[in-house]
């Protein structure tokens, strides 16, 4: 009878974390930052059809990096969570905090279960408030850690370098064009960008909108 090899729990978790981190670091980064009228999601994304940035609910947006099939599943689960909650209670009862917690639970459970492979994704869930003081940005890691960010969040590869660059020029009172230009210059990318905004000045109840190619070019144009 063969004895199973003993692996220390610390080593097991470290291996799983290394595995997930490696997967995420291969991908391109996403920046989420506040600006005067809301929150902008700026992703480096060569595809025009496979999105990294999405609407979840009236005031809530989503951005992700890592394995596409995994975060697409999480995105759809988030929309189902939000729509069911809003339908059962009220539209105002759907919050980014609740959604971020639900994501953290799922990622954390899978990470520590030991049977399935950990998710190779990092997520950002953001909610635009009635006023700037109530804007919220949450960053959720592959292991279910959840961080409440104040002005901006960076996920993907090279987060430390990007955070430093973005932090240097960040201004929560900047207009959308300046915010997008700053994010684009941090990413060093102008053509393959996917941008979405949660715009609190929109009169519709749905505050999210994808910034189309033409508008993006004019936002970037003032460089």
């Amino acid at each position, binding site marked *: 009878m063969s004895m199973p090899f003993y692996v220390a729990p610390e080593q097991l978790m470290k291996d799983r974390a290394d595995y997930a981190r490696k997967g995420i670091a291969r991908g391109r980064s996403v920046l989420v930052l506040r600006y005067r009228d809301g929150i902008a999601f700026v992703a480096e994304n060569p595809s025009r059809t496979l*999105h990294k940035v*999405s*609407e*979840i609910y009236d005031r809530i947006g989503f951005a992700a990096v890592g394995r596409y099939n995994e975060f697409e599943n999480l995105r*759809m689960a988030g*929309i*189902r969570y939000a*729509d*069911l909650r*809003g*339908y*059962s209670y009220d539209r105002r009862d759907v919050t980014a905090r609740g959604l971020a917690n639900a994501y953290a639970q799922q990622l954390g459970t899978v990470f520590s279960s030991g049977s399935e492979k950990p998710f190779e994704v990092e997520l950002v869930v953001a909610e635009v408030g009635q006023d700037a003081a109530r804007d919220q940005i949450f960053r959720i890691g592959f292991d279910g850690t959840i961080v409440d960010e104040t002005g901006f969040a960076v996920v993907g590869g090279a987060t430390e370098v990007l955070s430093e660059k973005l932090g240097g020029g960040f201004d929560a009172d900047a207009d959308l064009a300046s915010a997008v230009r700053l994010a684009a210059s941090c990413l060093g990318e102008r053509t393959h960008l996917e941008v979405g905004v949660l715009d609190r000045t929109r009169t519709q109840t*749905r505050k999210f909108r994808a910034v189309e190619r033409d508008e993006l070019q004019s936002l970037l144009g003032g460089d």
Partner: protein
Amino acid sequence: MSGVGELSSSFSQFVARVAPEALPRVDAEHVQLAPHGTTIVAASYADGVVMAGDRRATMGSLIAQRDIEKVFGADEFSIVGIAGAAGIAMELVRLFQVELQHYEKLEGVALSLDGKANRLGSLVRGNLELALRGLAVIPMFAGWDVDRRVGRIFSYDATGGRYEETGFHAVGSGAAFARGSMKKTHQPGGDETSAVLSVIRSLYDAADDDSATGGPDLARSIFPVVMTASAAGVRQLPTSDVADLTTRVLEML
């Protein structure tokens, strides 16, 4: 492809699976407790389609509410109005609104106008059991078809049957009178104002002969809810505009 599409992009199917208790339902013994909403009318015009509903809800011979709303924006380009048991009707509208938005968010594109009309039909069909016990809800659906660039109107029966109407249509207890009225006043290919005048007139005529339909209430400033769908999207006419147009209709009598 087994497993793919295990969960569809339909919100109502998702709810039926994970939280069936959240779907609209009512104990059939309490049918007589449900207030009923009445007449909904719709008419197309050159650049779109207009839908309007009176504001009365009745419980037997009593007026349950004077300012109920029965016409709603379903999404950016479509309108839904419902006659019948008010409580179920409101829930059905709420479910339909989430259904359309849910699909759009999951798929990244909105449903076609025919797709929306079909989804509403299947929601009505889901209510068939209650309809047989007297809690029928009969919706009318209208919207701007962004592909064909035309305003279209759809009616339904209690079994979920879907019928496209040309020109104009009415549902609810005062529908026969409203249709008779629009037959005379509706101008195919007319402008928005003439279509709005026609639907307001038809609601007035329905209220004249049907006790369950409320006429314009000048004393309380309660007027029909009027919504249009066109290339610019769905718009609800402000009460002041509806009041002016109602005055014009009354002057023409």
